[in-house]
Every structure is written in C-alpha cells, then in structure tokens.
C-alpha cells in the first residue's frame, strides 16, 4: 500500500515538474520543437500518474492513529492545537531523517573535499582547522570588517555555518557561504534580484555582468584560500571584493573604455585592484 501511494505521489511530482518545464521553455525557447517535446513529456507523465492512481484502492480499515487518537477526546479549546503541532513535529522529524540519509550517501561518494569528514561512530579528537571555528569567533571577526560602501549581514539558515550577505554600494548583492572561516561558495546578484530564499544562492544571476563577476569571485576565492591563515584569507577576499563598488562607473585600466562586448570591466586585479576587461588583461 505504502509503495503504491509513494509511486502515485512521485508520479504527481513528475507531472508538476514537466508542466512547469513547459512554461520555462515557452519563455526561453525560440522554436516550437522544444515545446512539443515537453508537451509530449507531460502527456506521458499524465498517463503514468493515471495508472498509478488506478492502482490505488481505498483503505478498507481506518488508519490507526496510535495514541494520538486520544487527543480527539480533548475538550479544552486551547489544547486542541496539540494535534496540529504533533503532525508538524512528525513531518519535520521525517524530513530530517530523509535528508540526513541522502546527505550521508552523497558525502561518502565525494572524494574531492577540502574538509575532513568521517562517518565512523568512533569518537575522535576534533581537528582544528579553518572550517571548525566556533560561530562566536566568526561573528566577531566579521564585525571587525570595515570596507567602504559595504554592508554585511550574517544569516544562519543551516545551524552553525554562516551565510554572509553583502550589499555593495547599491551596485550589487552577494552572498558568501562560509564553513567556519573557509569560503565555500560565492553568489553574486543584481541589486534588484532576490537573495532571500535559500535556493537563490544556487541560481545564477539573470545578468551577464554579474555572472562574470561571480566567476572572477570564485577564482579569487581559490587564490586567497589558505589553510593556515584563514582569517587573512577571508579578510583579503572581502577587501578585494569591495573594489567592485565601481563596477559600472570606472573604465578599464588597459583600454580606457567602459564597454567591451557590451560588458563593463568585470575583472579586478588581486593585488592592485585595478579594473580591467577580461579580454584586456594580459
């Protein structure tokens, strides 16, 4: 029974994904060919969902709710919310369980990592490194940064690791995802693009110029990375990144022009912080 319900739910999920895919292709695609293909995909998914649903049969016996059914007898108005809370708590717990199982298998497969990970249950000495810095220390360090035109804010959507949001002088927004003091990812977006949702951190900017800046930021992140001087690394990165406050207003140091291929100078030298076009630098 459970298997069938799961199959049906998966079918619906696929159907929804393919329908939203249609709208995405309708926005971006030039020809009708891609659109026809995704419509065919929807029809296919629809059929599958239908067969899944037909396989389902109504439960013959009522579900046993265990001890929770006693909550039915509760008469106090204020305590009637307990059932909702219980259901939410249960859902949350199930989700954590599922996510951690997936995360654990993923981490075991990934051999390219910059930090240590061990799934053995044996207790071992905590290795000190850039990625195991207590949150208080990170907060304190970030509060000492003082770069012109830059506003910094710390979010912690995932427990201890900080997301550092940067507003750079009404020019751009960026998020630096930290693991301890080590920079793991940088996202660069336009001032009018959203970074409020956690998912926004993994989508690219709509604008070519910020995609270029993000690329440059990623290479700078690796350039400044240092396993022993983590504080220095992040400090230099932030200072370097601050030079983008003149992204639109300062011309290229090499060719003296603002635009090349309809783009402003998106590259900043890691030492002199001079702006250049990607194509102009030697």
């Amino acid at each position, binding site marked *: 029974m459970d298997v069938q319900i799961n199959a049906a739910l998966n079918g619906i999920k696929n159907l929804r994904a393919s329908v939203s895919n249609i709208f995405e292709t309708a926005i971006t695609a030039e020809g009708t060919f891609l659109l026809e293909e995704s419509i065919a995909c929807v029809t296919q998914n629809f059929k599958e969902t239908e067969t899944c649903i037909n396989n389902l049969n109504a439960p013959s016996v009522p579900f046993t709710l265990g001890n929770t059914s006693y909550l039915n007898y509760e008469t106090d108005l204020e305590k009637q919310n307990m059932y909702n809370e219980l259901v939410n708590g249960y859902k949350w717990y199930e989700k954590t369980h599922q996510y951690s199982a997936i995360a654990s298998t993923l981490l075991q497969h990934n051999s390219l990592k910059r930090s240590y990970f061990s799934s053995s249950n044996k207790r071992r000495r905590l290795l000190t490194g850039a990625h195991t810095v207590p949150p208080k220390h990170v907060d304190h360090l970030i509060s000492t940064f003082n770069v012109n035109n830059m506003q910094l804010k710390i979010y912690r959507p995932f427990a201890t690791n900080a997301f550092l949001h940067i507003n750079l002088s009404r020019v751009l927004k960026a998020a630096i995802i930290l693991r301890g003091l080590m920079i793991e990812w940088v996202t660069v977006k336009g*001032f009018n693009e959203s970074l409020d949702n956690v998912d926004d951190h993994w989508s690219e900017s709509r604008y070519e110029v910020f995609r270029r800046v993000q690329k440059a930021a990623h290479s700078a992140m690796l350039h400044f990375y240092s396993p022993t001087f983590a504080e220095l690394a992040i400090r230099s990165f932030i200072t370097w990144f601050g030079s983008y406050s003149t992204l639109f207003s300062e011309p290229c140091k090499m060719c003296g022009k603002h*635009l090349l291929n309809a783009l402003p100078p998106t590259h900043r030298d890691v030492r002199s912080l001079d702006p250049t076009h990607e194509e102009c630098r030697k």
Partner: protein
Amino acid sequence: MGVTILVPYPLDNKKTGPEVVEELSKRLLAMQATQTGHFLVDGDVFESSFNKTKIHVMHNSEYPASVFSILDNGQKQIPLITDLIFDLLMLKVNPIYASRKQLKIESKGPRFELGDFLVKLGSVTMSQSQTFKGLLIEVDYRPCLIPIICWELIREFLQGFLGQYSPTTIPVYFTNSVPNPHHPVPYQKSNDTYQPIDTVQQYLEHFNNYRKQTIALMMGPNK
C-alpha cells in the same frame, strides 16, 4: 529592470522614419544584438469636465500587467501604479473624466537585446489616424539601478550606436531637483533608485512635446 534612457532621434528630410529604423536595426544586428520581438508604449489622456486636471493613463509592454497613471493638475504630478483592471475603472468615471482620443500617442517598434542592454526603436504615432511624429530610442541597462553610476557607460554605448546623434549629457529628467517628502533638501532622480514609473514619465515628457507641436501646427495657419 534597470536604468533606461530615452532619446529622441532627429530626422532630417533625407530619410523617412521606417528607413532610419531599418538602418539602426541593421547596425544593431551587426553589433551581435538579437531581435526579441516588438514593444509598445501607449498613452491616453483623460481630461476633467470641471477643471484643468488631466490623467495620463499609460501602458508599457515591458510590464504587461500594470497600468501607469500620472495625474497632472498643472502644479504637480502624482504617479500611480495599478493592475490592468484600472482601465475598466477609467471607463466608469467617463463623463467626469473623458478620454481625448485625438491625443492618444503610441511608440512601437522592434526590441533588441545585446548582452545586458535592451534597445528599443520606437516610431511615434498619434491619434487614430496614426500620424507619424518621430523616433524615440530607448536604451535600458538592466543590471544597474542608479542612473548617475552608469550614465557614462550608457553614454559610451549610445555613442557607439547613434554616433553624432547621441546625447552628451544625461537627460534633464534626471537632473531636475525633486522635492523630497522625507527631507528638506530636494534630491535628483539621477541619484535615486530607478523605478519603472521613471521610464513612463520620460515617455510622457516626450509625448507631451509631440502633442504641443501638433496643437501648435493646428493653430498655426489660423493666425
């Protein structure tokens, strides 16, 4: 949405409007731009039956779900942004505010994308007879929101594409000082975050110029 600069393109008598649009389109395509459909900006005027108040109701195909209205009572302008259904409401206020059909103006033409730039070549026509009035070129630099920061960059772009006809200074719309409701010192649009209504207001200024020219022409022979 980003900073948009609207420039009228002067027409000499050598070339007609469609010819210039054709030529500029070719130039843009040679610069590796891609044409992405057409655009349309239109403006209606509703005039009060008992005083001089005018309501300009405008649409911009870049924001297809919005209506931009600007109320002009001679002393100040009040902008209002609403849903499309506002148009139906304007039909309800009809006898009190009546539509001046002969003053309806639209600017339409091809829309191009070049990297983060958006270029629109608009042919301006007026009233139901669709009389051709001139050309308005719209350049939108989408990543940036503060006009003063990216003006030099846009100027360079305009120069590369319009040559001698490109403007050398930022349009007056951005340098006029605007009273600030929260602060005694007036501010300039050039240092403020750009809003879609700013594009519409630039269009309105140019549309009103065309309207004045037409009215002056109509009055001219009588004098």
